[in-house]
């Protein structure tokens, strides 16, 4: 449900997105930070390093590792030893972590990472899209996507609450668009230390590596046992659907700030056309919707905050009465010619009574700007679909035909 945001202007400061995130991490009182520099994540880890150099993060060790692979591997040990753990990375770094991602999740270690979304090589690109995190969607990490700097900053505390809950114990990625959010200065309320100490209690895991009570972590499971580990991970993901909503509500009660739980909606009540998207493009879409509403185009926005777990029920409830749904994806499943949000939204509807035409657009790859005109054109095309039915189900947009 849309809620009134209580942003205290007297508390607002203009800072870079990366600083806001680093500050939020500090307020969450991590015990071990382990990271390897990679553009555009660097400002986060530089700011955290400065906090460490100034003695501002008590009871914390910062490990300057030699690779992203070791960044996350060190956190396997640290988390199992009972530490609240943090890392940040992007793109190639996240892909290098791939094997460790499965391991952290399988061992049920509630590590939180900020992923500063960036395209993957080749061709090498330092600019934003969502291919890096989308490609890790099956690794058993909760994935939350933020619309703006305030949201990603606050999402850090929410992620720890969700991940560390004993009913969940699954790691989280909080995803922010590279440069668009990481390197932009905006007025924000920095995550309040006093409120955070109440919202996020110290991490007290049930099982830790401790010579006083020797336990074995990471045993191998033969076919008699493996399946149940996977099943229990999925059960935890399903419980996280409710937990993500609960934590967002509780965050609102304490901080007065709310961005949605699994999803958020904007002017969807009577919307005939609903646009679905994740990340910073949501802000652009809201502007376009306001403009079109003035022209009596009944458009609305369904923002997806949680891509994992996938909020199938919540999506279904929002789009069931729409006349057409448009899904925007900053990623592609090569060989399917679809973005992941598009594919998964369609799949959640298949065995249901909801019959809405859905079209997908892949855009914003490798940092290409998504302009207001692009959103307007997409909505124009959706309006045509209402009259004629679907002509092209999924397509690239803003292609530079002259280069092909």
């Amino acid at each position, binding site marked *: 449900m849309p809620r009134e945001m209580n942003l205290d202007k007297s508390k607002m400061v203009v800072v870079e997105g990366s600083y806001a995130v680093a500050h939020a991490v500090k307020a969450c009182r991590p015990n071990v930070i382990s990271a390897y520099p990679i553009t555009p994540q660097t400002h986060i880890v530089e700011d955290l390093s400065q906090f460490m150099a100034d003695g501002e993060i008590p009871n914390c060790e910062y490990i300057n590792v030699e690779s992203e692979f070791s960044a996350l591997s060190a956190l396997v040990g*640290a988390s199992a030893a009972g530490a609240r753990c943090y890392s940040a990375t992007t793109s190639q770094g996240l892909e290098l972590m791939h094997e460790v991602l499965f391991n952290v999740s399988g061992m049920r270690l509630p590590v939180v990472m900020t992923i500063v979304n960036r395209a993957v090589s080749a061709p090498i690109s330092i600019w934003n899209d969502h291919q890096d995190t989308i490609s890790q969607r099956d690794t058993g990490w909760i994935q939350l996507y933020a619309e703006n700097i305030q949201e990603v900053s606050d999402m850090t505390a929410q992620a720890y609450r969700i991940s560390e809950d004993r009913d969940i114990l699954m790691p989280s990625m909080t995803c922010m668009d590279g440069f668009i959010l990481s390197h932009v200065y905006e007025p924000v309320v920095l995550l309040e230390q006093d409120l955070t100490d109440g919202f996020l209690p110290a991490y007290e895991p049930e099982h830790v590596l401790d010579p006083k009570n020797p336990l*074995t972590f990471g045993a191998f499971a033969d076919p008699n046992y493996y399946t149940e580990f996977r099943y229990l991970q999925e059960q935890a993901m399903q419980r996280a659907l409710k937990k993500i909503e609960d934590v967002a509500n509780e965050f609102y009660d304490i901080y007065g700030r709310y961005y949605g739980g699994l999803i958020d909606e904007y002017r969807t009540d009577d919307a005939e056309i609903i646009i679905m998207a994740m990340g910073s493009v949501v802000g652009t879409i809201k502007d376009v919707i306001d403009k079109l509403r003035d022209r009596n185009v009944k458009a609305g926005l369904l923002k997806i905050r949680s891509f994992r777990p996938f909020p199938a029920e919540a999506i279904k409830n929002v789009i069931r009465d729409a006349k057409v749904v448009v899904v925007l994806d900053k990623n592609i499943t090569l060989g399917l010619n679809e973005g992941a949000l598009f594919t998964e939204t369609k799949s959640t509807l298949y065995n249901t009574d909801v019959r809405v035409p859905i079209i997908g657009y892949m855009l914003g790859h490798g940092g290409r700007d998504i302009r207001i005109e692009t959103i307007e054109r997409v909505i124009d095309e959706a309006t045509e679909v209402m009259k004629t039915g679907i002509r092209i189900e999924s397509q690239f947009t803003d292609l530079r035909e002259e280069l092909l």
Partner: protein
Amino acid sequence: MKSLLASGHRGCAGCCDAMAAKFTLMGAGEDCIVVNPTGCLEVMTTPFPETAWEVPWIHSLFENAAAVGSGIEAALKALGRKGNTKVVVMGGDGATLDIGMRSISGVFERGHDITYVCIDNEAYMNTGVQRSGATPFNASTTTSPAGKVSFGNPRPKKNMPAIMVAHGSPYVATTSLGYPKDMINKVKKATEIEGPAYIHCHAPCTTGWGFDTSKTVEVAKMAVQTGLWPLYEVEEGKVTSVRKLGKAKKPVEEYLKMQRRFKHLFTMEGGAEEIAKIQAIADKNIEEFGL
């Protein structure tokens, strides 16, 4: 002395990993946390829901055990629980010299207070005796087999202890399953020294090398006595002890003929010349360390 590795694990009779793990724990004591990469030792000791470990133990992946150990050490420090607790990583030669090289290099450069024990059985035994960077010259493995035009592995062992000395480690030592007291003492010393310490244990594998299960210690001793595996300690970059061989020195044939993996050197044409090359490796060690 109480064994901190319970019996009943799935190791082969005469298993080098089980011996190495037991000796390591005798040196490290109860107040330790053990990290294992993927490998025989991990598989044979922890078939869920069983475990042979009577100390806290963790396995993550194949190539990251050192990094996992560094994270444990950092967490203990951050949480004020470090005390005298020792972080001990035990990895095979593949997990150490090959796939885990980046991870171990990072940990030693950063100076974490851990002890790393490489259990070197000179090939990938868990997957069926494939060649690693620690496989010796002319050993026949399943991916460096002897054949009509090959004497087996074409390269000498990577000199891992020297690489760890180059990292500025305060304590690097070699040891052997043939000399349990030597190993236990060196592990004890390594765990008591502040900073990253490295112990490289030569560990004959009955299955992979091809010798009777009762001969693990004999084969290990012979490697030392031929000079192919010198036992020494390096503290702060300086060699501080060497196990002298004196009159016990043996020709390398004595060692090679005990093992199936070198059998071809005694049957193939030109084998004698190849054995002479292996003798040259031993002679170089004897000269370098004054064995």
